[in-house]
Structure formats: C-alpha cells, structure tokens
C-alpha cells in the first residue's frame, strides 16, 4: 500500500486519535519531569529519543493532510518539546543526543552515497557541472555582497573595518552555498520520488558536499588576514584539507569494499553491521579528523557502483529510514535556539529569502546553459534551499577559527539555517508533487510482513 493510499484512508477519527495520543505522550512526559525534576544521565536521553520518535511520527501524520513533508513534522515536534517551548526536554538532554545524531548522520550519508548511480551521474555530468559552477559562484558572490550591503541591519558588523567586513561577507557567502543532504534524502525517503528532479537534486546536493568543504576552507584562508590583520595567508590549511579529503575518500572506498564483500559473502544482520560501522567508524574518523559525511557517502557510492550489492544495501538502509530521520530532525528541532531566532528573525529572514531568490536565479541561468528540461528549469532550485547540520557544523568551525566575530556570526547562521531548515523541505516536497515524481513506488507496510512458522 502506498503512502498516499494510506493517507487517503486515514479518516478524521484516526487523525483525532493520533492527536489525542500525542497529547497523552506529552502529558506523560510533562508529569514525569514534574514528578522527578532535575534528573540527567543516559536514561533520560533514551526517554528523549523515545519521545521524539513518537512525537515526530505523530506530528508528521498530523500535518500530512496539509501536504507538508514529514521532516517538517519531526522538526516541529522537536521544537515544541525542546527547552524553549514546552520544556519537556532540557538543554542538557538535547546536547546528550549528539552521539545518536552522529550515528544518524553517518547512516544518512551512507544512504546518500548508495542512492547515487554512476551511470546517472555520468549522464547528468554536464548539467551538474553547470549547476555547481553557477550556483556556487552566484550564491557566493551575491550573498557575500548582500551581507556586505546589509551592514546597517546586522549589528555585529557595524563596528568592523571594511576589510574585516569583506572577510566576514566572504565567509557568509561560502556558508550560503551549503545544502542539506539529510533534508534531501529525508524527503526522497518519505515520498519515494523518482524522476529527473529527484535524480538531479540528489546528485547535486551530494556532490556539493565536497565542493562546499573546499570552498569554506578556501574562504577561511582568504578571510583570515582580512579579519585579523596580524594573521597571514597560510597554505597549511589546504594541506590539512587535502589530507582530510583524500583520507576520507580512501577510507570511504575501503569501507565500501568491505561492506560489498560482506553483502556478497554473508548478507545477514546488516542493521547490526551498520550500527557497528556507525559507532566504530565515527570514532575512528573523529580521531583521524577525516570528514565523516564524505567518508560514509563514498562508502555508499562504492557499494552501489563498484559491486552488484547496491540494491541489497539500499533495501537494508531503507529499513532504518524513518527512525534515523525522526531522531535527526526532531533533535535538530529541539536544539533550535528559539529565543535567538526571535531576536534575529528579521535579518535572518532577509538573508534566507535572498538566498532562495539567488538560488532560483542560479537555476534559471544554469538550466539555460545546460539545456535542462522544463521540469528542472522550473523546480531544480527547490531542493537546494534546505540547510541543516552541514551549515551549522561549518558555522561552528568559523566561530572557533574567528573568535572576534564567532559568537554573533554563528548566532546569525543558526537563525538563518533554522528558516531554511523549515522552509526548504516544504518547497522541495511541493516541487516533487507538482513535478509528478512522488508516489511511484509502493511503501512496505506492516500488513506485508509474513510471519514465519512458530
């Protein structure tokens, strides 16, 4: 039964029951946190994961009739439960969810790589090249320029000298180029969309990960002497970047080959194997300072394209799908600094809106240059609006590397990413629906399981 069919069959009674259940779960958590206040530790983190899984699933079901993506429901559930709204989960608990988030991100990256088909990438190479070039350059230059021009409305930039402002604007422009692989994959996982828009967006967003990492490192090297006159341009950063990128690709390739060999020779209990990989490899990658997202993405890509095990692997990954996305996005929602967004929303809205406009313009230009079909010319920008963990991670690095502007820069980045995180998935889902690419594949439902004997 397809998701749409199921959604269509869900009447008002079912929706009302879901609403009541959501209230009941919230009430239960509220009562327990009030009955036993101030308890921290691993067990409450576990409760938080459980609650976010349930609340995220129920909220996504509740907003489904509005045509909104499930991701939005997960985010809303996280925001509502988080430390700034209902306070069912406090800041400490939300922070303690980060290892689970790391695991979720590694699984998402594996899925992303495994979804990339080499033949498709080759076929789309010209289109991807034009789109990457135009989107990167246009967003970098125009968003950097806009940030520079918006100096009067961005408080922390007013006191900066012009050279420093150019440097900060360059960093902002580089940050604006980042996309969200997790949001793209989350939407594609929910809608099971197939078609040119889905294929293009996936390939573009995955490829842009590498581009963005290089771009941000370059921007930071150039911006450093501009922001801090005592610093000088250093090529060391590029050496470290090269080490990280090549190391990530090499390790990802090895990991991919190992997974492919396992699938061919054993092919059992992939879920446990994925957990081992997620926890074990993430720890190793952290120690080696390699890019986890890139490593897992390459591993997935290798399994898909350098072996015949790709479809088996995708089927295994899809089993983990919802749990991973709910935890990842609901945690992101709970982690959202609502007071910060409340304070910065006018500036953030201007910057986020401008980024969407520039992305739209960029897709028109790139589409014309590469001769895109009408559906891509019309909608290809929609999947590029979302930003999430990657942008936040890079903003944290920028904040750490440039302490003089770090805190307000990151705050503005968080506020802008929050808007893109909320709006982006809605736009992409809408575009996929309009392009007629959703609901072509049937989702596996509970009723399709065949119980074994005894």
């Amino acid at each position, binding site marked *: 039964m397809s998701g749409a069919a199921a959604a269509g069959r869900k009447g008002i009674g079912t929706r009302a029951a879901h609403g009541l*259940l959501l209230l009941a779960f919230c009430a239960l958590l509220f009562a327990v946190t009030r*009955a036993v206040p101030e308890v921290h530790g*691993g*067990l409450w983190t576990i409760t938080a994961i459980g609650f976010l*899984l349930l609340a995220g699933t129920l909220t996504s079901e509740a907003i489904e009739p509005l045509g909104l993506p499930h991701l939005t429901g997960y985010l809303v559930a996280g925001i509502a439960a988080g430390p700034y709204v209902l306070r069912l989960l406090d800041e400490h608990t939300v922070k303690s969810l980060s290892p689970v988030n790391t695991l979720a991100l590694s699984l998402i990256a594996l899925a992303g790589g495994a979804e990339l088909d080499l033949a498709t990438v080759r076929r789309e190479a010209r289109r991807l090249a034009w789109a990457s070039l135009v989107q990167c350059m246009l967003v970098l230059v125009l968003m950097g320029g806009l940030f520079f021009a918006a100096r009067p409305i961005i408080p922390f930039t007013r006191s900066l000298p012009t050279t420093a402002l150019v440097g900060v604007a360059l960093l902002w422009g580089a940050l604006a180029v980042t996309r969200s692989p997790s949001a793209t994959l989350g939407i594609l996982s929910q809608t099971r969309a197939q078609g040119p828009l889905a294929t293009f967006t996936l390939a573009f967003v995955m490829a842009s990960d590498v581009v963005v990492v290089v771009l941000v490192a370059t921007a930071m090297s150039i911006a450093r002497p501009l922001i801090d006159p005592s610093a000088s341009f250093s090529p060391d950063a590029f050496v470290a970047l090269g080490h990280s990128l090549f190391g990530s690709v090499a390790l990802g390739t090895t990991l991919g080959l190992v997974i492919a060999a396992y699938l061919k020779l054993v092919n059992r209990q992939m879920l*446990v194997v994925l957990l081992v990989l997620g926890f074990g490899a993430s720890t190793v990658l952290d120690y080696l300072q390699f890019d986890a997202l890139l490593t897992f993405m390459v591993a997935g890509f290798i399994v898909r394209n350098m072996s015949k095990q790709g479809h088996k692997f995708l089927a295994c990954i899809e*089993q983990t799908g919802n749990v991973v996305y709910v935890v990842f996005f609901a945690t992101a929602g709970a982690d959202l600094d609502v007071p910060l967004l409340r304070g910065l929303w006018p500036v953030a809205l201007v910057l986020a809106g401008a980024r969407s406009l520039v992305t739209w313009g960029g897709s028109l230009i790139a589409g014309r240059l590469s001769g895109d079909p009408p559906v891509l010319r019309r909608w290809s920008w929609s999947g590029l609006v979302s930003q999430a963990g990657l942008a936040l991670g890079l903003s944290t690095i920028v904040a750490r590397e440039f302490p003089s502007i770090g805190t307000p820069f990151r705050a503005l980045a968080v506020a802008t990413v929050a808007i893109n995180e909320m709006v982006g998935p809605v736009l992409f889902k809408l575009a996929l629906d309009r392009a007629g690419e959703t609901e072509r594949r049937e989702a596996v439902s*509970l*009723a399709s399981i065949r*119980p074994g004997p005894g």
Partner: protein
Amino acid sequence: MNAVLLLTGLLVLAYLGSFLVSGRTVRGAGLPSGIEYVALGFVLGPQALDLVAGDTLASFEPVVHVALGWLAFSVGLDFGFSGERRVSAGSLVLGTLSSLLTGGAVATATWFVLRRLHVDVTPVERLLLAGGVGTACSETTRHAVRWVVDRHGASGPLAVRLDEVAHADDFLPLLAVAVLFALEPAGNVATRVPLRDWPAITVGLGLLLGGGAALLARSELRLEDTWGVLFGVTLMAVGTSARLGLSTLTAAFFAGIAVSLFSRHRRELRAMVGPTERPVLLPALLLAGARIDLHMSPALPWIAATAIGTRLVAKVIVGWMLATSSRSARKGGLLVGLSLMSSGGLAVCIGLAFALRFPGIVGDTVLAIAVLSATAGEFIGPVRLRRALRAAGEIGEAEAASPAPGRVAA
C-alpha cells in the same frame, strides 16, 4: 577496556547472537539458558580478569536498561502464545500457579535463611532480597522445551503442555518485580504517592504506551514508521519508569501485552520483533556476568543452596499438579516437574534489574542467585525433560540418546 571497545564488542556479540536466531546456522553450539555468555562476562569482569572495569560497566547502565526493556517488551508481545498457537486457559492457570508456588516458596525460604543467618540488612531490604530471589527463580525459560522438542523431534500432548506452561509463567514474576520495586520508592520523587499505587502506575504506564503503539499500528503505518513506534514506546516505557524508580521490565512487559491485545497485527509485529530478541539478549547476559560479585556476602552460598533446593522441590510439586490434570504428564513420571527447572534469559534479566535498582547486597545477591539457579537448571532441566518425554512415548530412543546441543534461549 574502554567504553567504545566494549560497545563494539557487545555489538559483535549481538551480531553473533543473530546467527543463533534460526538455530540452523550453528546448531549444536550453545546452552538453552545462554549461561555461557554470563560466564564469559564474569571472566571478563572485575571479579576475574578485570578487562571490563566497574566504571565502564556503570557507563553502560542505560544500554542495559534498554536491552532489558526491549526483551521484556518482546516477552509481553509473545505472552499467552507459543509460536502462533494460543496457550490454553488450563496451561495459563497452571503456568501462573507454577510461578506463584515456586516464587513464593523460594522467597519464603530465603526470608527465613536471611533471618536465621542474621544477614546485616534492614527489614525492607530482607523483604526485597527474598522477594527478588523468589521472582528470579520462579520462571521456566520459554524456549527450553522447544529446544528439546526441536532437537529430538518430540511431539505429543506432554511436549505441548510443558511448552505452554513455560510460555505462561512470566506474568507473575514481572508483576512481582513492580511490587517489590515499589517497596523502596525513588527518593527524588517530588509528588507523594501511596506505596500501593506504584505497581498500578507501572502497569498503567506500560498499558498506556502499549495501547498507544497498538492504535498507531492499526493506522497502516509504513514498516519503517512501525519500527519507530515500537522503539519509541519501549524507550519511553524504560526511561519514564526508571526516572520514577519503577520496574522498567514490568512497564515494558505490559506495553508488549497491550500491543499484543489491542493490535490486529500481533502476528506481524511478533515476526518483526522476535528475531531481535537474541541479538539483544546476549550482550545483556554478558553485562550481567560482568556485574556478578560472588564475594559480596558470606551468606551467599547458604542463600543460593536454599533457593535452588526450594525451587527444585517446588517444581516437583508443580509436576504433581500437572499430573493431576494431564494423563500424558502422569506418563512422564514422578519427577516430571523437574522438566521445568530450566531458567535463563528472563531470570537473569530480573536479577540484573535488581542489581541496577538496588546496588549493593540486595541487587548483587539476587543477580548471583538468578545466575546460579539458571546454571543448576541447565544441569537438571533438559535431561529430565528428555527423560519425561521418552517415558511419555513422545520421543524415540535413538533421538533421546543423541548429545544435547542447543540454542540460546530467553
């Protein structure tokens, strides 16, 4: 051994455990109770080689809680059924009586031994210790009979009856855990609740969460969403009950029962959850073994001997009760009740739950005796079961003479 290495080791163990699910891949390896994994944990733990330090074990407590909760949820989902067959009302009554008689007798005997030996515990602790030992010794592992039946190709009314009784005796021990945990409420609870209400709250919590999951499963969720709901419900049951100082095992067990009762997809859910049981159980058994401290009390050998001896006598009496209601059981011989001596995963899980909730002499003693009882059951249960089935004519001579390999069972 650091935490990441231990976690990886546990995941590898879970992986190996998953191969034992069907019993075909490595048939011939393992014991019905899975006690060898407890032994491995003991050897690696602080009491022997000290490869897994005490503080590392402490950092794994949340993982252990989740594992126990998931196992209890799985047991609840399967409660009242043996495979796809519903357990008969007679077996349900007999199973409940069996656990009541065995657990009650063991608890009473333990209480008297504690008093006689002047073990340095408060009256509440004595009650907790005696009750904990009683609950941990009261059940028969659900898969012990299936293990012998599968191995020796037995079939007949006695095999069915024993299998059903073993499947029906988990209810009371898990309910008793909730009652015992309520005797010493968590000190940090801000709301004042009468002691008698805590067990009801534990059960209500499980039923509420399980009922919610059943309601959600009715609305034709996608398979991935269903996993999310089952995980979510179990984690919430575990986390909220632990925060309140209640029995996580009981809350998760009743959540499983509620899902089974209220969902029309019980069979499908069971097919989903069943294969995960052993991969979760083995790491839990290993961690239980690592926590065992056999030197925590000089009275331990006496308490253990009393508990195991009383359990033995109680099981013989259960066998007589069985014989009065079943002709096939009468054919099994006078000691047919000893066929139900095997205990395993659930008993050790109860012991581990006590060790987590009441660290010190109470928890450590209950865990140690749960393990010792399962070990003793390993020597008696399968042998007596084969003998009883052979006497009842439900197993051939050739098969009965063959060695006794097996599978790990909860």
